[in-house]
Structure formats: structure tokens, C-alpha cells
């Protein structure tokens, strides 16, 4: 029996990765780096630039948190649901703020899905039934490399047996001629927009039979959608930042559903970002930027805002790298507060942190659950077990308080 692994590299969570004779099979380039290079650039336990043992680093972190008034816990998008639960409990115990990358990524789309404002479906149903699939502001070729071959356009599905050229209709919406747009050939369409809201507006108008800037395109898409019992819009970061108002997009999807079944699945993000959103939602009813002190979520509690407005004195950063990913005006504030980094890697943020606690690579050295972009829960079995993982570390800090 062949052993298959789940790749934690992105929210596709491909579950068919094999390692045979030292070769990593079927994983994309990003997945190959996860499995093939997990021993590189590992973090070492550090306190104020000096190497210590792990227990001392955990102790130092615990003491720092005890001494702090205003704490934010941030990240956890690449770790397991089990670790996220510990992180959330820790935030509750500390009366802290908690947030992840989704607050400037696709969190609001996930929230709309969990609140049942956006109708959604699974990637298996997309494969088996979807006819029209719209990639809007997403370039899966680079961001979710196997998305189209594994789940959407290319595979043959139970009710779509004839392959992409006959049984699918691909729409790519982007501000540029992305690689994915080049795949829109026969039975397909590329719409190069400069303003995403104009296309949203066009869909509204076309349903009502009115003239609009993209009336022709929207009309063709709508007619395609009417042919199928399942159509899907995959929205990426380009959509998130192209829209002035998410509400209008949500209304648009509702409007489309008056004439054809159209579902939404977010297309982007880290392996378990949706897991963070769902885990926090189950606990407090919000997906991110939550303040346990205030008992609510709000824009002002986003990690980036807390940093920018100097509202926190300590940040516990788990498995994410804000120095790498946040605008400089925000990340530059990290130098002014106490930072504790829990990460398997010596990340850019770890290099400036006061305390570094090395952890396990989730999915490779630690098992657990992650949530795919469509909400399907996937169980991960590690290649090898590493005792000091995120669950261990977060639990130990919690007990030490």
C-alpha cells in the first residue's frame, strides 16, 4: 500500500503526495519545498539574540506575557486546528487581542460564507458538476498551482466526463494578462478589468436586461451558468482589493442566483487560514481581529491597526512572518514592542524577535486537522513526529501563566 501525505503548503491541502525513493511525487513547486526543505533555515531557541534551550525560551515568553498589559496573538494560519484552539484559549486567558493574516487577506469572504450570506460548495462538487468557473482576481497558476488541475477546470468529473474543452467554461478576470488568463482559450473568456466594481455592476444590470460596460461578457457568462446546476466563482486577493464594497459583491452573487446556481469559494491563502477563521468563529462568533477584553471584533483590533496605533506592548507571533508580508509602516513598529516568535523557521520576523521558540512544521513534523479553502476538514499525518510543536508550546505557555 502506498502512503500518501497531505501537503500543508496552501489551502488546496492536496492529499495525494507520495514520497518514493527520495522523490516527492505530485506536489507542486511550493509543496516540494515544504517536504524537501523542511530541515533548512530552522529556528533556534533565542532570548534577546542569545541562544538558549527551548524550555528557557518558553519560560521567558511566559514571563513576558505575564508582565504585559496589552497583548496580541497573531498568525497561526499554517498550524493545525488543534494548535489554533490552544492559541485562542491562551488569548482568552490573557484577555488579549487575536488576529491572523485573513484580516487583510480573504477573511471577510470566509465570514460571509460562515454567516451564510455567500452560498458555497465543495471542490469535489466543483470537479463533478461545475460548468462555469470564474477565477476573479486570482492567478492560481502561481498562488495555488494545482487548483485547476486537481479540482476545477481540468479534471473529469462524474457529471462532466468530456473534459475541459466541452464540459467546462472558464472565465478569468484580472487587471493583467496573468498566466491563468492565457489558459482561457476555447470555451473560455478573459476579461481584463481596470475596475472590478464595473464588472460587478454589469452582472447586476445584465440580470435585469439593462445596458452595461461588460454587458456582452456578462451575458455570455450568465447564459453559460443557466446550463448547469453548479457554477462557481473563485475569488482571490485581486478581487478583495479591487472591490470597494464587499456587500455589493455579496448582493451580486445573490442576484445571479435568481437566474442560475452560483457558488463562491475563496481562492488564496495559507494551508489553514480558513481553519483559524472557523475555529475562532465557533468560539466567539467572529473570524478574526477579535478583542477578548472588549468581547467583540472590529477593524481597530486588526493586528496591523494595533501595531500602527501603538496599542500593544507584546506580540506573540505564531507561524507567520509579518516582517516579510506586512507594509513597512506597520512592520517597522514591531521593533518597538516585545515580540515572541513561535516558528519552525528562522523567519525574517524571528531575526528581530526578543524571544524565538522553534517549533515543528505542521503537516510534516506534527499531525492534526486543517481546513481546506472550501471548508472541508483534512487530517494530516506527519512524516516524522517532533515533540516540541505548536500545541506543546502554546499549551506550556498557557499552563505557565
Amino acid at each position, binding site marked *: 500500500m502506498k502512503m500518501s501525505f497531505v501537503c500543508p503548503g496552501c489551502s488546496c491541502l492536496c492529499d495525494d503526495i507520495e514520497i518514493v525513493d527520495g522523490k*516527492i511525487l*505530485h506536489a*507542486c513547486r*511550493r509543496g*516540494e519545498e515544504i517536504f524537501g526543505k523542511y530541515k533548512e533555515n530552522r529556528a533556534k531557541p533565542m532570548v534577546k539574540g542569545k541562544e538558549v534551550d527551548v524550555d528557557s525560551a518558553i519560560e521567558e515568553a511566559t514571563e513576558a506575557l505575564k508582565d504585559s498589559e496589552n497583548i496580541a496573538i497573531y498568525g497561526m494560519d499554517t498550524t493545525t486546528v488543534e494548535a489554533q484552539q490552544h492559541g485562542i484559549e491562551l488569548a482568552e486567558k490573557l484577555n488579549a487581542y487575536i488576529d491572523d493574516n485573513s484580516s487583510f487577506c480573504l477573511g471577510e469572504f470566509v465570514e460571509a460564507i460562515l454567516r451564510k450570506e455567500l452560498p458555497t460548495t465543495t471542490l469535489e462538487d466543483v*470537479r463533478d458538476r461545475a460548468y462555469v468557473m470564474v477565477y476573479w482576481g486570482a492567478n492560481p*497558476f502561481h498562488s495555488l*498551482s494545482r487548483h485547476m488541475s486537481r479540482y476545477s477546470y481540468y479534471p473529469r468529473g462524474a457529471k462532466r466526463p468530456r473534459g475541459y474543452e466541452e464540459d467546462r467554461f472558464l472565465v478569468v478576470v484580472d487587471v493583467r494578462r496573468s*498566466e491563468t488568463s492565457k*489558459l482561457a482559450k476555447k470555451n473560455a473568456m478573459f476579461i481584463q478589468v481596470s475596475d472590478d466594481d464595473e464588472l460587478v455592476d454589469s452582472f447586476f444590470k445584465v440580470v435585469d436586461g439593462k445596458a452595461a460596460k461588460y454587458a456582452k461578457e456578462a451575458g455570455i457568462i450568465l447564459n453559460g451558468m443557466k446550463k448547469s446546476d453548479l457554477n462557481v466563482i473563485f475569488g482571490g486577493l485581486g478581487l478583495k482589493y479591487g472591490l470597494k464594497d464587499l456587500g455589493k459583491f455579496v448582493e451580486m452573487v445573490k442576484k445571479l442566483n435568481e437566474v442560475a446556481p452560483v457558488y463562491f469559494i475563496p481562492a488564496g491563502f495559507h494551508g489553514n487560514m480558513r481553519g483559524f477563521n472557523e475555529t475562532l468563529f465557533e468560539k466567539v462568533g467572529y473570524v478574526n481581529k477579535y478583542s477578548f477584553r472588549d468581547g467583540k471584533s472590529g477593524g481597530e483590533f486588526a493586528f496591523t491597526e494595533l501595531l500602527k496605533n501603538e496599542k500593544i506592548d507584546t506580540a506573540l507571533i505564531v507561524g507567520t512572518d509579518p516582517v516579510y508580508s506586512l507594509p513597512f509602516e506597520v512592520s517597522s513598529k514591531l521593533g518597538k514592542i516585545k515580540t515572541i516568535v513561535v516558528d519552525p523557521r528562522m523567519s525574517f520576523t524571528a531575526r528581530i524577535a526578543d524571544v524565538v521558540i522553534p517549533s515543528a512544521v505542521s503537516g510534516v513534523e506534527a499531525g492534526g486537522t486543517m481546513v481546506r479553502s472550501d471548508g472541508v476538514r483534512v487530517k494530516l499525518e506527519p512524516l516524522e513526529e517532533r515533540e516540541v510543536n505548536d500545541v506543546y508550546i502554546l499549551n506550556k505557555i498557557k499552563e505557565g501563566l
Partner: protein
Amino acid sequence: MALNPMDIYKLLPKTNCKKCGEATCMSFAFKLLNRERRLEECIPLYEDKKYERQRKKLEEMLKPLEEATETGLIVDESLCTGCGNCVVVCPVHVEKDPKGAAVGKGITIDDPILRVEDGAVKVINMQACRRYGKNRVLCVVCRENCPTDAIRFLEG
């Protein structure tokens, strides 16, 4: 990038001397491209000094042929993200691996034409390709669905 027989023909002696066994230089050019003939079989090109410049050009031009597989397929791994489009769209794979590649999963058969290994596509068994052998067809499905030209064919 693509080679065509006319460009090759233009650099041959164009004397139709038949020393290579072909009736015409044009036919020799075609067979060079299909790798049924080797350039060294054109004797005048190597014996007559006046063809030296043309010979060098031809050698340069035909270099990719040596790197290409028997069907003319060339893979540039540095352009490949391992998306797997080529593996999943291949009609041979779809037929032979209905529960694997055909439905989007990592290919399960032992001797696929293409497989993603270590993050990039690798040629495993070119003999199974529809472009190979006597009844070959000029299938280009894998190339058509590679947006970065990581997969190319000699003829373009």
C-alpha cells in the same frame, strides 16, 4: 524557437546529390527534423570546405534536437511550477488512469508519459505519447495548457 524544415533546407548544399540516400535535400531536411537522419550523413557538408559556415549554423540550429525527447518534446523545469495541467490533460493518461490523473489526482500508473516529481514535470515514458511511433498524431494538448512554455515542441 521552433524549427522548420525550410530553414534547415536553406543551409543544406541544395544539390540533391543523393549521397545521403535521400532523393532531395528537402527530404533530407524533413528527416533531420524527425531525427530519422543525422547531419553527418550529408557528406558534402563535411567534406567541402565551402559549406563550413553553413554546417556550423546547422549544427547550432539542430542542437535542441539532441535535448528533446523522441517526440520533439522539450521540458524547461525552470519555468515549471508543478501545476500538473499537462499530466491531467494528456489523453493517454486520461484513458490509462481513470481514477488518478483523469480526475485530477497525482498519476497512479507506473509508466506515465509525464509526472510531477520534486516540484516540476519530468518525462518518464515518452514511448506512450501519441506523437510517438508509426501511427503518431501531432497532439499538443500538454503544451497548450502550459502557460509559461515550460513544455515546448521542436516544431513549435
